[in-house]
């Protein structure tokens, strides 16, 4: 017998009772096991079967169990186990299907004791009962588990796992009769050793083979399993259904798993392929290994804790033909190398930042952001655990919430609802919108509105003498502007009437433009028109603004506006002037459009009261012969682009609409269309259907206005004969009855018709509304309990 294999000195030297050390084996190892007193280790593999003594400084080969000139396959071990009670007793699982026991107390060279050849296929695992001396369990590729009594010549019971190969068997540490078996098809079965006919319970633990399992040494309910799916799972078996309580994702298939002694939450794993390291995990922290041993050059095939009550020594055998003793203190701690800082943006612009507490506190005297962000420091401390060697980790998580007013989208919705885009004189619109913006704490926007008003309507503010030279030509311009406003007002009246009948279908037509989604600001909204669209919401009265508000305008300080007003002087105006004359043509076109539209819709009449819609007549046309509004156009154009660039399409579009012809020519159609589309899209995302429709209506781009022209037909069936109402009018062709009769007043409904989806009765909007205020039953008397929502 060989006396000693090569022994090398290794990494550390000042260990108390051992150190990290290794020795070369002659052949790759498949499995290792230690004896109870932790002084010897057995290494088994295809071509090796040896016992080494664990000495202070080195491994010393004690015994070679592989004897005979031509060793048989019985020596080719897939697994080995040293009995934990009887120190002379070992068992091996042979690749040819044999289960062999070895008695070290035998005087002869050949220590083979018993040979069981009952399995037809490779035996993957053998396991001694932890407290019973003569009980041995084996699990084989042929799908059977066999329990042997070592005093008898053959197995005492056979457990059939139903055809799939058994990869691991483990006796429970605490329950005398229980063992767990893991299978190639992903299942884990629990058996009672006394009942070979049927498993006690079965559950699917992994996808693909479960290569290993291990009972927790202290906690009787915990079973750890490792599979080809690269996961380690810890199951609580005390409940009725096995419950997965922890899961660790590794980077390669898990070949072995072993709980660490004396550490409730630690387990060691090694992989079957590709990855050569041994990891020790704290299962509560599944994302980073607690410790890593990186010594092996090929896959680790066997790991075992040297002593069942000492967590500091780990032994491992590998395909690289080495046997290692790893000292825990020499392990690599990946957590030390990990980057503990994390940064993430939330969906609504919130920013979360986690860092080591020390870092945060050193920065604590730094001022927080001036923008009024709020910080919530959250501290995580690990509970101090005396058995815990993990570096104390405490990190601070800071969440920076963005300013409510500037980064939440509330302001967007509010602005959209409150802005006035049409229906009032230009100056009033501007003032109103400025006020809205100011109330929403958006001073810059507010000031912009005020400035716009001043630029385009207030002669007092225009002091530049330059344009006066062209006075004769320019004089007409303001006229046109005010004229156009008037027209817009009345034009809108007709259009909004039409709008009501189209309401149902309008949201379908909008193309979503993904461009400017994220942030945008701005908006406008005419309460009056919303009222006229009452079909969708029955509350148009509420949202109306006090007219008083419009007139009580405050002038803000205009500090921020300087950046816009200053460059004015530098600009030439001539070409602006050239552009302007074409404005009326546009107007003509618009006017021509409206009747055309209503022509299309002729068959759908609408009865909703238009009274709520106040047709604006301009009180005082704003004449200012000295004021060439177009002078500001380049600045305004830039300003709009600026807002759009900032993501505030709302502002860009609102201004565009309010200014109307004053600016429209300045901006190319594509850009306008793009802004409109973006804004409409945003409005629809916020379900501001009314506002979006308003914008569509007010837009001057043909591509936008036509959004409302598509699919505006509503097909209805006769309420009597259920046939489609093919022709115009209110009498059904076939049954010559009036369709759509109001259930309350029994007249034909020729406008807004509301009906119950439950019983399909209905009638005039107001009638039904009033009826249902006092009664819950259908007015038609059908007994249905109609509901308004």
């Amino acid at each position: 017998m060989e006396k000693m294999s090569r022994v090398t000195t290794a990494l550390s030297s000042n260990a108390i009772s051992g150190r990290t050390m290794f020795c070369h084996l002659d052949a790759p190892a498949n499995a290792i096991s230690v004896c109870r007193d932790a002084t010897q280790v057995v290494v088994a593999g295809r071509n090796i079967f040896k016992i080494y003594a664990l000495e202070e400084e080195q491994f010393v080969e004690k015994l070679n169990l592989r004897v005979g000139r031509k060793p048989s396959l019985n020596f080719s071990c897939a697994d080995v186990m040293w009995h934990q009670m009887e120190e002379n007793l070992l068992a091996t699982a042979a690749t040819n299907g044999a289960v062999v026991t070895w008695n070290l107390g035998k005087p002869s060279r050949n220590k083979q004791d018993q040979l069981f050849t009952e399995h037809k296929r490779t035996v993957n695992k053998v396991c001694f009962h932890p407290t019973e001396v003569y009980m041995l369990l084996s699990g084989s590729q042929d799908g059977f588990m066999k329990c042997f009594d070592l005093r008898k010549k053959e197995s005492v019971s056979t457990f059939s796992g139903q055809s799939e190969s058994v990869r691991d068997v483990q006796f429970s540490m605490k329950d005398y009769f229980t063992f767990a078996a893991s299978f190639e098809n992903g299942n884990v079965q629990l058996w009672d050793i006394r009942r070979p006919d049927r498993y006690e319970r079965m559950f699917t633990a992994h996808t693909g083979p479960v290569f290993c399992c291990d009972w927790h040494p202290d906690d009787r309910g915990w079973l750890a399993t490792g599979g080809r799916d690269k996961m380690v799972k810890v199951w609580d078996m005390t409940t009725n259904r096995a419950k997965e309580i922890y899961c660790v994702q590794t980077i390669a298939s898990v070949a072995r798993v072993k709980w660490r002694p004396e550490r409730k939450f630690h387990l060691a794993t090694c992989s079957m392929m590709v990855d050569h390291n041994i990891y020790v995990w704290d299962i509560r922290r599944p994302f980073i290994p607690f410790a890593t041993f990186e010594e092996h050059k090929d896959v680790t095939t066997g790991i075992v804790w040297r002593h069942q009550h000492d967590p500091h020594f780990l032994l491992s055998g590998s395909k690289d033909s080495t046997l290692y003793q790893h000292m825990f203190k020499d392990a690599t701690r990946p957590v030390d190398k990990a980057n503990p800082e994390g940064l993430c943006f939330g969906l609504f612009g919130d920013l979360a930042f986690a860092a080591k507490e020390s870092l945060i506190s050193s920065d604590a005297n730094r001022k927080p952001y001036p923008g009024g962000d709020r910080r919530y420091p959250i501290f995580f401390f690990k509970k101090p655990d005396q058995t815990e060697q993990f570096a104390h980790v405490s990190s601070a998580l800071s969440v920076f919430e963005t300013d409510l007013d500037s980064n939440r989208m509330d302001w967007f919705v509010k602005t959209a609802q409150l802005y006035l885009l049409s229906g009032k004189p230009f100056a009033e619109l501007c003032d109103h919108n400025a006020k809205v913006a100011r109330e929403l704490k958006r001073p810059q926007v507010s000031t912009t509105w005020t400035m716009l008003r001043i630029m385009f309507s207030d002669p007092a503010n225009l002091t530049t003498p330059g344009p006066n030279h062209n006075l004769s030509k320019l004089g007409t311009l303001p006229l046109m502007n005010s004229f156009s406003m008037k027209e817009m007002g009345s034009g809108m009246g007709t259009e909004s009437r039409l709008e009501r009948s189209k309401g149902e279908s309008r949201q379908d037509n909008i193309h979503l433009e993904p461009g400017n989604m994220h942030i945008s600001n701005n908006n406008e909204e005419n309460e009056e028109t919303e009222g006229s669209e009452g079909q969708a919401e029955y509350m148009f009265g509420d949202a109306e603004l006090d007219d008083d508000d419009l007139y009580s305008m405050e002038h803000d300080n205009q500090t921020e506006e300087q950046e816009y007003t200053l460059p004015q002087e530098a600009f030439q105006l001539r070409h602006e002037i050239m552009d302007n004359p074409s404005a009326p043509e546009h107007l003509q076109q618009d006017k021509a459009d409206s009747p055309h539209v209503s022509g299309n819709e002729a068959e759908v009449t609408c009865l909703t009261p238009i009274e709520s819609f106040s047709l604006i007549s301009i009180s005082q046309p704003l004449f200012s012969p000295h004021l060439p509004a177009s002078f500001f156009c380049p600045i305004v154009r830039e300003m709009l682009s600026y807002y759009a660039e900032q993501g505030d399409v709302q502002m860009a579009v609102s201004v565009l609409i309010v200014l109307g012809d004053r600016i429209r020519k300045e901006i190319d159609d594509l850009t306008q269309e793009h802004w409109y589309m973006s804004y409409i899209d945003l409005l629809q995302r916020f379900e501001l259907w009314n506002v979006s429709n308003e914008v569509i209506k007010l837009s001057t781009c043909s591509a936008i206005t036509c959004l409302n022209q598509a699919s505006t037909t509503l097909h209805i069936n006769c309420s009597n004969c259920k046939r489609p109402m093919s022709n115009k009018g209110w009498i059904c062709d076939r049954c010559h009855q009036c369709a759509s009769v109001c259930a309350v007043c029994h007249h034909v409904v020729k406008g807004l018709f509301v009906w119950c989806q439950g019983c399909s009765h209905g009638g005039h909007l107001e009638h039904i509304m009033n009826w249902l205020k006092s009664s819950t039953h259908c007015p038609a008397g059908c007994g249905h309990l109609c509901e308004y929502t």
Partner: protein
Amino acid sequence: MEVQDQESLGRWDGLGSRDISSRTEAMDNIHQEVMRKVEAIGPIPASAPSPLASGSAPNIDLNDILAHLLMLSKRCPFEDVRERCARLLQSVQDLGVRIPRPLGNGPSRFIPEKEILQVSKVDARTQAIIEDAFAALGRLDNISLVMGFHPQYLESFLRTQHYLLQMDGPLSLHYRHYIGIMAAARHQCSYLVNLHVNDFLQVGGDPKWLNGLDEAPQKLQQLGELNKILAHRPWLLTKEHIERLLKAEEHSWSLAELIHAVVLLTHYHSLASFTFGCGITPEIHCDGGHTFRPPSLSQYCVCDIANGNGHANHHDDLLGNQEVCGEVEVLMERMKQLQECRDDEEASQEEMATRFEREKTESMLVVTAEDEECVPSRDISRHFEDPSYGYKDFSRRGEHVPTFRVQDYSWEDHGFSLVNRLYPDVGQMLDEKFQMAYNLTYNTMATHKDVDTSMLRRAIWNYIHCMFGIRYDDYDYGEINQLLDRSFKIYIKTMVCSPEKTTKRMYESFWRQFQHSEKVHVNLLLMEARMQAELLYALRAITRYMT
């Protein structure tokens, strides 16, 4: 016929749709186009005996289309397309144009057409499978039809193949087909080569590459060595081979690409085995699958006669039945014996080892004896097979190769993990396919029911692995001798090691009482076992390289 113009590529696409209206539309287009081409050829005097016999350019193009139509009329899973194609062909013929007719009798030379899956009569499940296949490839190849004996397997096979060839993967599409061509060409499998030449060109491959491996990119040329070794002597593969491929500077392969290539190579090597093993005939629309000649006096074409297809077939069966009456029973008896008294004989370990060695050497002798009998049919070898790659005879005399132990490197534990790591999902698919092939059983043997065939399947599987030098520690190779008779061994050996030498006689001479579906089943086993064996060697080499 390989070069198709762009316009013609999209022509057939609509036919794979499950939507009947889009199929109809596609058929309408084809109809118009065919008619246009027919008219372009000009009016044909009724008396003249077809002026179209030899080819002006439009003529050839038309012939291709007609051949494709012929294929569709027989093989399309959609009844409406089949009918319309047949009608269109008829109307073309009525115009005086010569139309093709299929050569041969069905998808296989070995198996009578009437036994093979008929596209028109299949159950719903199979119908769904072949519709999927048709939609993916625009054809239903003969291989699929023959595999149709075992629809479960067919599904798994087609899914894997589809994933390998068409889904996400590290290699570009034309590379994949070219690798398929390379692999099939190693075994001179003209059927697969033809099929993939078409596909290769369709996905935009450079026709120049088809002139030979020399014209292909350097990167693919380097794969030639691996191809050769894998096909004939996979046990010689070492990590140096892998290293050479991975470390070739600008022509080097990435690991993921290499795995993809290896899976493709092994897939097509084994598929070539299947093709020869089942005597798959050329596709109707490919070269040699159809003819424009009018039917001659004999109903059978030359190759059929040479292979004794036809009347003789039935005659043989009758004779065979009398001769080997009880063959099945003997086999079953042996299986039973083995099952019962395996503990009695309790062979020593040395004995077991020798048995493996004996089986190994004997498997070599099996073919050497056969070599003189069957002359390799070289006439079908393709033009672009690199002549410098001589056929390597399977032989291990004189060289010592250590036995590959499955217990040390198995597909389930090691191979799977490696493949899945580098080429996600494919590991899973291959795993399913292997298991499907290995576990497939109907518990029947010939006319007997309720037979546990696991022992027989395992013997076949392990015998093939044995020929590749792969040993199962837990298997008694004595069983093989009991269960597999000599003619069967000859067939297995030929099919696995030099499939191009398989003859109809071999196919017929083993297991004479068994049904064709069972023989196809055997072929599936052989194919998968071979693929796994090659894969194991290749993956082991890659693993060694990586560690």
